[in-house]
């Protein structure tokens, strides 16, 4: 979503993005002229008249599980967004009985919070696991 019109979205998709992604952008390119939706989400810059690089993960119940906002010159890490969605999906499937520690990726160990884990995280999780 940006403040550009759907007509500009079409030109950008047809003349540039479709050269990067075969078939063009597969999802909706939303238009928010005036920044009314961006204002509600807190990422519209009134002075510049544009929207910041905000990214919101919304679950199937419509609940915001996470967000990230960057100023314009720095691009996002899409892989990190996917990792977070995979973590939130795992938590949802476990009905909250599991948690993903720092550095978790699909396939890595999860934590089972409960009385037995109190004071014992150091035994099952090492700081190196935040980076591997």
């Amino acid at each position, binding site marked *: 979503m940006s403040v550009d019109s759907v007509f500009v979205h079409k030109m950008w*998709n047809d003349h540039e993005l479709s050269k990067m992604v075969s078939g063009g952008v597969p999802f909706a390119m939303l238009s928010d002229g005036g920044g009314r939706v961006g204002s*509600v989400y807190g990422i519209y810059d009134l002075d510049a008249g544009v929207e910041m690089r905000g990214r919101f*993960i919304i679950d199937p119940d419509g609940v915001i599980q996470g967000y990230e906002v960057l100023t314009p010159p720095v691009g996002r890490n899409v892989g990190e967004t996917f990792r977070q969605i995979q973590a939130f999906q795992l938590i949802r499937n476990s009905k909250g009985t599991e948690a993903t520690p720092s550095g978790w990726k699909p396939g890595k160990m999860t934590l089972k919070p409960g009385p037995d884990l109190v004071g014992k995280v150091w035994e099952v999780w090492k700081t190196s696991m935040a980076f591997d």
Partner: protein
Amino acid sequence: MPEEIKAGCARPTGGPVGEAPKTAPPVEGAPVKEEKVMIKVGGKAPDFTAPAYLGGKFVQVKLSDYLGKWVVLCFYPGDFTFV
């Protein structure tokens, strides 16, 4: 799901997804307060409708139409920007 567009512009519906907009009656003599929805993790996303370009068509998209699915909502400064 998305319907082919009639003319329109993006607007928040005034309520969270899946719920009716909250329309509080104005209180006589109360100071005018700017309506500000606070975004909070663990809270409902503000619902909205917005025109969109999707698969060669202009359509109108409503966030609450995507209930039951995971949604990534991305904002960016402008088309033809570099990153």
